[in-house]
């Protein structure tokens, strides 16, 4: 029997760019969210003002306060979407029986929704060529139009900031893969330990023939994009946990740690927190504490990262979240698929425009960390219903691979991205015989 040649796993140079999502240096002094909107508007207005001369050079740029009836002009401001179905905490205290129509199962949209544009000087209701369904609160745009006699602003054209500039991709000549997995939900009823073990064994090269192992050896990194554990709701309802249950809460994390330890022993792993993980609720979610992973954290290949997570692998720029930003857009706006929501966030140059309005967010005073300053090459979103991917091409030759990562515990699918050509494929595992 011939002795098989030893295979060596490929390496890729990695740099973590999560610094902007840290909140360690921040000090809460009772500030509210107005500062975020101010910094966002300031930053985006500078961008949009620079684009206006090439868009409509003949038109004057004014503010909401400076509008004159019937005069064509351009205004820049933050959109606010007035939604009658949007849940409000005040409804609970309303004395009158509400006559609000029922909410659709997934979405708070209603045909009466309308948009309002605001800047420091005032706000104006919008009408005309701006579909409320495609926008959400918090997006900054430039609008061409004129004020009507009713005091509304009749929009003729909309200018979004567009895809940010992108760094050139250096040509690589060998295949290197990054594996994305999300929604492991260890500890939930849908989690299948065998399925996850198969994924681990495949990635670490313990499965398949030589051909398959060669592919596995090209995997340079695994990214776990949120919701890795599922903690039973009865433990997180605010009640004191009985002492006999205290060890049970930690069980899913311990199990995850055992699994991750197998992975980090063989290749680098990034783990991001998600909305169900034991991390802070508001974005940016801070890295899961290393003490949760007593086994995996002993390896230097293990890195606990923030959500959103931004990094660079062999000059390929990655940006991704565990899904909260896109899920929130899905609640408050409409698109043909999740990839379109992702595309919009890139064109708006903002990762989570609905934060802080309907998405939890830290009250920054001097910056808005979710502004996208440079275009990533790969943009991923975790915990989605199904796998979707598309290559988005921008007007300045930007190329972005958009990836929706499905929940692994439900689909058994992990996503594999080739760094050489940004091609995307799935790794699918099934443990039932009839499939």
């Amino acid at each position, binding site marked *: 029997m011939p002795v098989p040649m030893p295979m060596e796993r490929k390496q890729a140079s990695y740099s973590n760019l999560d610094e902007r999502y840290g909140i360690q240096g921040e000090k809460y*002094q009772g500030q509210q969210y*107005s500062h975020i909107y101010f910094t966002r508007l300031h930053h985006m207005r500078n961008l949009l003002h620079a684009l206006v001369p090439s868009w409509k050079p003949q038109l004057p740029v004014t503010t909401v306060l400076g509008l004159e009836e019937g005069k064509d002009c351009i205004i820049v401001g933050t959109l606010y979407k007035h939604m009658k179905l949007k849940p409000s905490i005040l409804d609970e205290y309303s004395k009158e029986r509400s006559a609000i129509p029922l909410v659709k199962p997934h979405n708070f949209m209603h045909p009466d929704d309308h948009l309002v544009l605001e800047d420091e000087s005032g706000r104006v209701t919008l009408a005309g060529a701006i579909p409320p369904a495609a926008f959400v609160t918090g997006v900054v745009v430039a609008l061409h139009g004129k004020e009507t006699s009713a005091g509304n602003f009749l929009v003729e054209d909309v200018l979004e900031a567009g895809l940010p500039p992108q760094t050139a991709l250096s040509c690589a000549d060998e295949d290197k893969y990054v594996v994305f997995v999300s929604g492991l939900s260890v500890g939930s009823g849908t989690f299948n330990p065998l399925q996850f073990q198969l994924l681990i064994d495949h990635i670490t090269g313990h499965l398949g023939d030589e051909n398959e192992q060669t592919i596995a050896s090209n995997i340079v990194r695994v990214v776990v994009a949120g919701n890795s554990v599922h903690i039973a709701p009865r433990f997180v309802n605010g009640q004191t946990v009985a002492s006999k249950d205290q060890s049970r809460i930690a069980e899913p994390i311990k199990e995850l740690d055992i699994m991750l330890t197998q992975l980090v022993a063989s290749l680098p792993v990034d783990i991001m927190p998600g909305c169900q993980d034991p991390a802070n609720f508001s974005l940016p979610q801070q890295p899961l504490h290393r003490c949760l992973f007593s086994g995996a954290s002993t390896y230097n290949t293990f890195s606990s990262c923030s959500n959103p997570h931004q990094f660079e692998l062999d000059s390929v720029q990655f940006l991704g979240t565990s899904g909260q930003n896109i899920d929130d857009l899905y609640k408050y706006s409409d698109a043909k698929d999740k990839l379109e929501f992702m595309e919009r966030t890139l064109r708006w140059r903002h990762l989570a425009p609905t934060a802080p309005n309907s998405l939890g967010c830290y009250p920054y*005073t001097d910056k808005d960390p979710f502004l996208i300053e440079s275009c990533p090459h790969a943009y991923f979103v975790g915990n989605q219903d199904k796998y979707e991917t598309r290559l988005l091409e921008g007007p300045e030759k930007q190329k972005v691979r958009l990836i929706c990562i499905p929940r692994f515990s439900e689909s058994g699918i992990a996503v594999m991205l080739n760094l050489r050509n940004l091609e995307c494929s799935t790794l699918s595992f099934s443990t039932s015989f009839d499939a």
Partner: protein
Amino acid sequence: MASSGMKDFYRQKKKGGVTKASSSSKKKTQQYTGGASVGAPDTAQTSALVSHGSWDLKDDFGDQEEQLRQFDMDTKFGPCIGVSRLQRWERASAMGLQPPAHLRDLLLRIPSTKNRSDSTPSVECLWEGKV
């Protein structure tokens, strides 16, 4: 049972000035030094109008405080509440909004809380503690 627990939980604020509604009529007459009359019962307004136990009706701030208040109220430099005046100045400067340079010197010269007289300007914005 619940109400007595509440009293312990929330610190009772009313130390000086107005204490109780029963005795307030007597005290009111003593405290009216200015001629201005306030329509609403004073319990609702104490924190805004009474500082250090006396009516805050005259402008007891200096020229520097006046300049800083004008800076607070300038919407160009963004919201003022929740950040200190110096932080707001630094933010405006970092954003390229060119806030008045002499205000920074002024803010840096404000003495620490210990040896302050009433006329020294505040490090916090106009609304701090009032809304």
